[in-house]
C-alpha cells in the first residue's frame, strides 16, 4: 500500500458539499487538501501551492471545465481527475481528449476514487520505462511480446498484442476510443471504430477467464476501455 501522506490534492468544485465530503475522506487517508471554488481560483492554486494531483468537477458554472483543462495543459503535466455526471459522455470524452487523465461519474464510491488517484500518482515520478505488466493472473512482457494468463501462454495477433500493450502501459487509467486508435493505427483510422471493437472482442475471448464477464479489460460505456489493476 503506497504511503499517501504528504501528497497534495487540489479540489476544484463549486459545490461546497462535495468539497467537504472529499476533504473528509481524503484527509483520513493522509492526503493534504487544497480547495478552489472556480476554475480561475484553481489555476491560481496550481501555480501557488503546487499540488500533486487535481480533482476537477467538469460541471463548473462560469469557466467551462474543459477550458480549465486546456489552460492547465498549456504549461503543466499535472494529473487531472475529472468528476462528471452520467449521460455526459461527450463531455467526458472531450475532457479526456483535452488532457484529463481519468474520470469518475457522480455519485461515486470513495474506494474507486482512491484507486484511480493512486494510478495517476504513479506517473508523478517517471520511472524507468516499464518492461512489462503484471496483475492477478495476467502477465505481459513488452519486449518478448509474450502474454501469459494463469501461466498459460496466449497467442495473440500483432494488433491484439499492441492493443493490450497500450492498455497495459496505461493500466488503471481510462483510454478513449480515439486515443487507442491513434496509438494503435494512427489518426487516419479514426472513422474505423468497429476495428477497435472487434479486436477488443477477440482479445477478451483469448484472455478473459469469464467471458463475457470482464475481469481485465473493462468497458467504459461510451468512452473507451480500461485495463483493471487488481488490488
Amino acid at each position, binding site marked *: 500500500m503506497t504511503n499517501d501522506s504528504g501528497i497534495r490534492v487540489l479540489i476544484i468544485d463549486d459545490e461546497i458539499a462535495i468539497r467537504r465530503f472529499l476533504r473528509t475522506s481524503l484527509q483520513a487517508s493522509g492526503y493534504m487538501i487544497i480547495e478552489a471554488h472556480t476554475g480561475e481560483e484553481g489555476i491560481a492554486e496550481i501555480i501557488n501551492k503546487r499540488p500533486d494531483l487535481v480533482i476537477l468537477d467538469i460541471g463548473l458554472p462560469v469557466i467551462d471545465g474543459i477550458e480549465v483543462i486546456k489552460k492547465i495543459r498549456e504549461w503543466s503535466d499535472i494529473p487531472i481527475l475529472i468528476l462528471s455526471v452520467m449521460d455526459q459522455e461527450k463531455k467526458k470524452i472531450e475532457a479526456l481528449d483535452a488532457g484529463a487523465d481519468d474520470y469518475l461519474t457522480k455519485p461515486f464510491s470513495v474506494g474507486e476514487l482512491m484507486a484511480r488517484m493512486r494510478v495517476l500518482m504513479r506517473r508523478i515520478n517517471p520511472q524507468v520505462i516499464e518492461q512489462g505488466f503484471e496483475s492477478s493472473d495476467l502477465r505481459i512482457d513488452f519486449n518478448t511480446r509474450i502474454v501469459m494468463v494463469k501461466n498459460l501462454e496466449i497467442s495473440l495477433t500483432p494488433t491484439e498484442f499492441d492493443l493490450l500493450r497500450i492498455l497495459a502501459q496505461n493500466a488503471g487509467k481510462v483510454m478513449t476510443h480515439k486515443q487507442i486508435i491513434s496509438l494503435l493505427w494512427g489518426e487516419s483510422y479514426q472513422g474505423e*471504430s468497429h476495428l477497435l*471493437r*472487434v479486436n477488443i*472482442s477477440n482479445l*477478451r475471448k483469448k484472455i478473459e477467464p469469464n467471458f463475457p*464477464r*470482464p475481469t481485465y479489460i473493462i*468497458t467504459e460505456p*461510451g468512452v473507451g476501455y480500461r485495463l483493471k489493476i487488481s488490488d
Partner: protein
Amino acid sequence: MTIIGLAVRRNINPTNLVMLYLLAVVIIAVFWGRGPAVFSAVLGVLCFDVFLVPPYLTFAVEDTEYIITFISLFLIGVLISSLMAQLKEQMLAARDREERVSLLYELSKKLAIAYSLTDVINSIQKSIRQIAPYDSQLFLLNDSIGHMGESKKEDFAIYPGLDGNDSKIIDDVVTVCNSGKPSEIIIEPTLGLPVIYFPLASNLGNIGAISFFVNHSHQEINPDMRKTFEAFANLSALAIERVNLSNQANKVQLIKAKEEMQSILLNSVSHDFRTPLVTITGALSSLNSPSENLNHDDKQSMIKQALREAEKLNRLVSNLLNINRLESDILNIQKDPVDVEDLIGSTIDHMEDYIDRSINVTVSEKSLYVLGDFVFLQQALINVIDNAVKYSPDCSPLEMKIYNNKNFVIIEVKDYGGGIPEEEIPNIFRKFYRGEKSRNGAGTGLGLTIVKGIIDAHNGTVKVISSKEERWTIIQISLPCYLIPEI
C-alpha cells in the same frame, strides 16, 4: 304563319286566326327574345291585315272592328313578347344566381371540412377560380390572426406568390384591409385587368383581402356579383378564423395535458424518491445514534442496503431525465458499432453489485453487433433487468439469452415471477403503469416506457411474452444487426 292562314281562311273564323298569330309571337319571344318578337308582332298585324282581312291584299279594312283587333293584336304581341323576354332574362339571372349560390355552397362545404390553414387556403383558391374568370388572389396577414389598427405592407403573405414589383397591389390591399370596405374597381397596372378588392373580416380585425377579377370595364359591378363576392369573402374569413381558433384551442389543450402529466409525474416522483430515502436516512441515523446496539453484521447489512437504495435513486434520476428526453424528442443517440456481448457483460457487471441475484447468461457463438448508443442501450437493459428483479421472488432464477435471428439480434430477459395476464400486456409500456404485484418497491412505472423509447430510437422492437400457467415472463428486445465490414 300567314301561309297557313291563307290556307285555312275559308274554314276558320279570322278571330281564331288571331289566336294562332299570338301563339306565333309568344313562341318567337320565348326563343328569340324581345326584339324579334316585337318585330313579328308588327309583321303579323300587317300580314293579317293584308292577307286575311277583306278586302284582301290591301291595308284598308272594311270593318272598323278589325282595327280594334289589329291594335289589340299588336299590343298583346308586344306585351307578351316583353313579358316573355323579361321572364327569360329572369330565368337566366336566376340560373346564374343559382350557380353562384351553389358555388358558395360548395366552398362552404369544402371549408367546413378543411383541417388546416393550408387546406382552407387551397379550397379558397380553387373556388376563386370558378367564381371569377381569371386567377383572383387571396391576401392574408402573415399571422392571419388579424389585429385592430393599421396593418403594414410587410405584414402580408400572398397566395399564390406575387413578385416584387407589385407594391401598388399591396398598397391597395393594405388600404382595403385597414378600411374594412370593399374597393372600387381598379385597374392594376401590372395586371392590366380590372379587379375589385373585398376585405376578409374577422372578430379580431381584418385578416386580409381577396381580389376578384372583373370581366367588364363598367364602373360598377352588378349587385348580384357584389353580393356573391361579399359572401365569398365572408365565408373565407370565417373559415380562416375558425382554423386559427381551433389551433389555439388545440394548443391550450396540449398545454393542459402536459401540465396534468407533469403533475402526475411530480406526485409519483416524490413518492419514489422518499421511499429509498427512508432506508438511507434510517440506516445512517441508526448508525449515528449513541444508543444503537447493532452488531457488526447488522451494521454491514444496513449499510449495504442503504447503498442499494442510493443506487436506485440514481437510476430513478436517470429514468426521469430519459423520459424527459423522450418526450421532447431530444434523445441524442450516438450511432457507433456496439458489441452486444460487451454490452451484456458490462451491464451485468454493473448490476450485480446492486441486486442480490445472479443472472444466467447464454450467448451466441459468433460476435453480434448493433449500431447504436452503448450508454442508452445499457440503460434500457438495466431497466429491463431491474423490472425482472422487481416482479419475481428473490430466490427465482433470472435468465438472459442473446442470439441472432436472420438480420436481428435478440436479447431476452426471462423471469419466473408468475407471468403477466394477456390483457395487461399492451399496457406494460405505458407511462406510469405498474403491475399489481410490485414486490420490491420503488419504481415510477417509467422503466419499461423508457426501454421502449430507447429501443424504438434504435429501430428495434420490444415485445413481452408471458405464460401464466408456467409463470414466466420474457422481455424480448430485437435490434437490427450491424454487419462489421470485412477487415
